[in-house]
């Protein structure tokens, strides 16, 4: 009887274990990428903090050096506001990395005012409030999450009114600012692993394709970005080779110029 109950217990445990932890069915070890790439869905653009997180693991970064709170120019052209909005949200992630509460709060207000300028302020007000509250309590994880929600809400509100292209510019603005900071950090303390974080050729193609679909946004800054992306692509599309220190510096020069073009009037 004892043996039977023991067997029963073991069987029950095994069954429960199997039920709770169902491992993935055998997936093919190799797929035909050429065939797959024809059915690929749109890419999700990584947030700056995703890249900053990887960068942090390579060594400590003095994020305070990159915090920016000064009020940037006011624009009336919606594509320019969208680019700037993406950049300012990226600045928010930098301020979170630096754990700089006053900067985070200021950036939260700036995001709200830019969102109003582009007609999506209503959806951002609760997020701006949540950012301020979380920054006051120094709950950095909550601020990060709220910044992600802010960007997502801005883009959802834009998509709702069929402003998908502006929504894409928000992502692009954030990516450019993130790349500028990434290249600044890696230029200062070069390592092949740090440079490898720039290996994003598919994202560049994604942005280039999106910009080609915006002929109506005939603005010098858009042309500058298109030209710069064309110059960056061969520097990062190096296959199995390493991205050189010189390439990182060049990308930093290009993205710094673009950033200046995004945040200032001229």
């Amino acid at each position, binding site marked *: 009887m004892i043996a039977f109950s023991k067997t029963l217990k073991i069987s029950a445990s095994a069954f429960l274990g199997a039920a709770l932890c169902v*491992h*993935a069915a055998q997936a093919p070890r*190799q*797929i035909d990428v050429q065939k*797959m790439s024809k059915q690929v869905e749109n890419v*999700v653009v990584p947030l700056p903090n995703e890249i900053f*997180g*990887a960068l942090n*693991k390579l060594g400590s970064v003095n994020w305070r050096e990159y915090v920016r709170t000064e009020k940037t120019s006011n624009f009336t052209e919606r594509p320019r506001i969208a680019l700037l909005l993406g950049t300012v949200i990226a600045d928010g992630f930098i301020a979170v990395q630096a754990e700089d509460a006053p900067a985070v709060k200021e950036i939260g207000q700036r995001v709200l005012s830019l969102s109003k300028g582009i007609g999506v302020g209503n959806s951002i007000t609760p997020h701006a409030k949540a950012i301020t509250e979380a920054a006051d309590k120094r709950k950095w994880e909550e601020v990060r999450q709220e910044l992600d*929600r802010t960007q997502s809400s801005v883009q959802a509100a834009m998509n709702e009114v069929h402003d998908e292209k502006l929504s894409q510019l928000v992502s692009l603005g954030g990516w450019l600012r993130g790349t500028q900071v990434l290249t600044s950090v890696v230029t200062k303390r070069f390592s092949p692993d740090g440079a490898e974080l720039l290996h994003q050729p598919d994202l560049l193609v994604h942005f280039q394709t999106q910009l080609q679909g915006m002929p109506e946004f005939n603005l010098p800054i858009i042309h500058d970005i298109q030209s710069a992306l064309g110059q960056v692509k061969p520097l990062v599309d190096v296959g199995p080779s390493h991205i050189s220190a010189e390439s990182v510096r060049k990308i930093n020069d290009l993205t710094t110029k673009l950033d200046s073009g995004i945040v200032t009037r001229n």
Partner: protein
Amino acid sequence: MNRFMKSSLRIGLILLICLILPHRAGGTVDDAQSFALQAAEPYVKEGFQVREDYWGGDLGSGEKKAVRQQLFKGNEYWFWLGTEVERAKISVHIYDAEGKLAEQQDSWEKGHFAAAHVIPKATSSYFIIVAVEESPEERTHWALVYGFR
């Protein structure tokens, strides 16, 4: 049964089917997303930051879809797939840019939830393949969310 009764019964039956059908296939991608987020929940406690952005759509039984995602070496990622169709069986797998299976052994599938875990060996573009293996519905909504730490 007279002719009037027969017609009334037939019309009643058609109306009943019309009322029931939209409820049977009435889920949305948003519903699927809430299940994907449900699968992600325990991992948030382990320090994973779950992105607000997600992919979604619908697939027929046996159909697959690939999404491409830039992943960064140094980070660790989980991708969670969910559907509101409780009797569906879904899967998610991750491949590197060369098409080699890149996921960790602890990736799992459990009915209308599935998850794949990847610690990228290189910063690059990866393919995430989502599939509806079996489903009682003609089209099954799916949503894929991801988190990193």
